[in-house]
């Protein structure tokens, strides 16, 4: 009947344009700074104190570390994951659909790829901010080494980007918020349990341990925990490579999926 539709093209995002979206999101976060910081510091602090001291009284040393240190270094990683995922699922979806913020931005020179990159960078930043809150608490409690904490920051930002990119793939398919509950329970919670955040990988059965090596959070923990206690990570290049590949693949996938979603 009609000739075949020309294929859509997802152009490469433009960093300066994406940065405008990042700044928009940062400005909104800044307006709500106090309540959001309370949440950032409050919840992890409670976890650390309750589990670290409560549970720590029972188990003492885990993986060669006092349990509270083991836990603090693990939670720094998982909070980067959780915050970046939450932002790239719920908040991004809110801006995209009910609020139509994307639609407003799309009327300007920004294209969907620019907006997606802006959201990715912001969600990654959000992951870093939350991890930083934990690190400050851990520093105040004398649990981690200050120099190591500095080294961990870029890694935590990369982790935020990685989980943000994965979450954006899910958001690109989402038709409502319900979907995100599945993402948390089916993807993030299992990740959290097998990646060495709460207990060492060594305590897991061999097949699970091997499978866990394919998962991004495992590599985040493997990088960040040693750094935070002033040691060098055992295989930093592998860890960084895995995280980078996840970020690039998921980021490119999300970009294409969002362009398709919007070009209808």
């Amino acid at each position, binding site marked *: 009947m*009609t000739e075949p539709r020309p294929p859509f093209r997802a152009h490469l995002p433009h960093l300066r344009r994406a940065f405008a979206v990042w700044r928009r999101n940062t400005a909104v976060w800044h307006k709500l700074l106090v309540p959001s910081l309370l949440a950032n510091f409050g919840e992890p602090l409670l976890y650390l104190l309750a589990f670290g001291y409560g549970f720590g009284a029972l188990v003492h040393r885990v993986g060669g570390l006092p349990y509270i240190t083991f836990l603090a270094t693990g939670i720094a990683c998982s909070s980067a994951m959780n915050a970046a995922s939450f932002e790239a699922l719920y908040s991004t979806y809110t801006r995209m659909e009910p609020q139509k*913020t994307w639609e407003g931005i799309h009327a300007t020179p920004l294209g969907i790829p620019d907006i997606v990159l802006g959201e990715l960078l912001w969600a990654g930043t959000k992951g870093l901010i939350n991890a930083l809150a934990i690190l400050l608490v851990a520093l105040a409690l004398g649990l981690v080494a200050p120099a190591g904490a500095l080294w961990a920051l870029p890694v935590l930002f990369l982790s935020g980007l990685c989980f943000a990119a994965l979450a954006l793939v899910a958001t690109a398919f989402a038709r409502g918020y319900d979907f995100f509950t599945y993402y948390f329970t089916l993807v993030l919670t299992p990740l959290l349990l097998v990646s060495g955040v709460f207990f060492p990988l060594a305590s897991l059965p061999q097949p699970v341990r091997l499978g866990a090596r394919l998962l991004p959070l495992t590599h985040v923990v493997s990088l960040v925990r040693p750094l935070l206690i002033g040691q060098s990570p055992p295989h930093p290049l592998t860890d960084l490579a895995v995280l980078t590949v996840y970020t690039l693949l998921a980021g490119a996938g999300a970009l294409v999926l969002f362009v398709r979603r919007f070009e209808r």
Partner: protein
Amino acid sequence: MDDNAAALLVTDLRKTYGGRTVVDGLSLRVARGTCVGLLGPNGAGKTTTLRLLLGHTRPDAGRIEVLGFSVPEAASQARARLGVVGQSDNLDPDFNVEENLYHYARYYGLDPRALRERFTDLLTFAGLEDRRDAPLRELSGGMRRRLALIRALVHDPVMLFLDEPTTGLDPQARFHLWQRFRQLRREGRTLLLTTHYMEEAERLCDRLVVLDHGRVVAEGSPQELVRRHVEPFVLELPAEAGRDLGLGEERHELRTLHLEETVFVYARARENLESLLSRCPETPARLRPSNLEDVFFALTGHALRD
């Protein structure tokens, strides 16, 4: 096909959704500095046409040139010079009135800190100078629409796309916006607006493109369209009153059209309709000059508004 006087050139544009043709061979030319209206009922394809012109969706066929840029290939450059007020409200609810302008300017690559004066001028233009710091939830529908308009003006665009800019507003708020549109037109900007209000089309537009089912059914100035497609006078009366007047009979000077419970009787001369009416003075009828609604009705057999 170099046409410098044209702000917009569209040739044979076509768009289908799942086999349904929504824009069907649309051609359009908008001269710089004019206000052109896309007039058509809901579902005629007005919004889809604008989305195609913005490069938000790809055509199945046809050529689009906006301000000299090919769309969708160079849509981003075209959008940098366009202001857009969309059909649905997409103001940023996370920001107050002025912050909406402030952050929007960044998307155009502007430094908002250097634009404070411009924001003040725009807020004054929209009658929102006292609402700078107001959260959006405190604005009325008309104020929101005016804010959407000045947000589309932060980068001083040469052309504006306005998608049903006054739908859902009360007459006063609508009038207020019309005044603003006229001023923008006087400043030399090109306006492309969609509407299903014939009064809006008649009052604002230099030229109209009447759409139905994604096709252009007529084109011209409002006066031209009325002159070309309908007789100058019309008598509107209830269907049963029409039967009492014997409208079934052959009358070469009259043309009748039925739309649901109403009969429209068109005539070249007012006297024809007056003499018809004088035979039955109690008939609840309205004699008026014909307008765009009659044009649309004559061309499509159905009303502009549902």
